[in-house]
């Protein structure tokens, strides 16, 4: 199980996956908006999304867990 963490503080712009969905390495699972820019967050392991901790519009800090992937 691996937690996908926020690389920086920002607002969740889009959530591109759903719980139960299979994702591959490098797939953009979520996009953050920070400093007027869109920051894609990629999955670093392949597997199934087991939990999503955030919603569009949520403010997150660096290192916050965004979602979890089970390999």
């Amino acid at each position, binding site marked *: 199980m691996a937690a996908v963490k926020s690389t*920086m*503080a*920002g*607002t969740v712009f889009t959530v591109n996956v759903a719980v139960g969905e299979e994702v591959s390495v490098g797939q953009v699972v979520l996009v953050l908006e*920070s*400093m*007027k*820019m869109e*920051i894609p967050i990629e999955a670093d392991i392949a597997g199934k999304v087991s939990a999503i901790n955030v919603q569009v519009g949520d*403010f997150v800090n660096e290192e916050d867990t965004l979602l979890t992937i089970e390999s």
Partner: protein
Amino acid sequence: MPFVKEADEAFLLGNAPVKESYLKADDIVQLAVQTGADAIHPGYGLLSEKADFVRKIEKAGIRFIGPDAATIEKMGDKIGSRVTMQQAGVPVIPGTDKGVGTLEEALQSAPSIGYPLMLKASAGGGGIGMVRCENEQALSQHFNSVKARAKAYFGDDVVFLEKFIADARHIEVQIFGDHYGNIVHLHERNCSVQRRNQKVIEEAPSPRLADDVRGRLHEAAVRAAKAVNYKNAGTVEFIVDENDEFYFLEMNTRLQVEHPVTEKVMGYDLVEWQIEVAKGNQLPESDQSKMGVNGHAIEYRIYAEDPVKFLPSPGIIQRLDWGQLDDVRIDSGYVEGGRVTPFYDPLIAKVIVYASTREEAIDKSREFLTNVKVEGIKTNVPFFNQFIQTDEFISGKYTTNVLNHFQLTAKGEI
């Protein structure tokens, strides 16, 4: 924030997210009324190009330092402004003269324009809400997302198509008008060094521009301003292709971030001009023949961002030491110990280097930038240090795609 400390009076607008403060037009107007302000200067971003904001200010009996609401509205509609400019005899990029509502319509219109093309939000601007499409497949892929983004960012999902001009330079002309029908240009700026369609270096005058083309650009910009009876400061942006053909891109109905390069080479204070015009006075200078350019100025936008990937780097500025050099102007929003938050644009300062020639300005830039010390956050200073030594920059032959093929050779730490 140093600018808050410099102010005689300062009032808190609200929380850090712009929707809870800087975008609350009613609260801003109310505060201005309460404090007895005569006028509001809108700055560069946020509400500066919102016609409704201007109307609210004027309704409250306060002056808006900028053009009138109707002009802002007219130029804010990118499709409408294309039509206005065509009628005024200003060349525009081949494209659709009305919005494309569906993907089918877009795919039908595309062949007559030709690929690659730009899919753009009509209410967009500043590099946001546009995607380059190489072919039908790319257009199909991006159509709905650009539309959705246009809706999310600008509250309007109208999109249109424009031909993508390859190997182009982004050259813009500063214009100024008053309430007495005077309209002048304050020469041009080359803003072709961009990442993600956003400017990082601007210079005035533009290098590598033939005098006759320069003259025609200025003339076209004045014609554009006259077509909308322009008042106050504005900028007409053009795309200039490899054959020196130029096309109207958009008009910014406000002061630009990069206005200091124009101030340096012309010796005018543009904000002072803006205030004079807003007060109902004539332009401080309206005899075009007396408005020449002297020397060369280059502006570097210092961003809190990773110099390799250009991704933002918020945090606390532990150290901010600009070093020393005469004739370098620094417009900074931060001091040491300040926190760069994720709520705003990553621009932390503008460094404007002035010299009598472009060569000297580049030499001076190199000397200055290598001595800048910032700690705690990453900045793009290491990128500038390398980029300004490339042949492409030194020769002045660069186009808007110059940063697509530039790579920082070593990860610079500062």
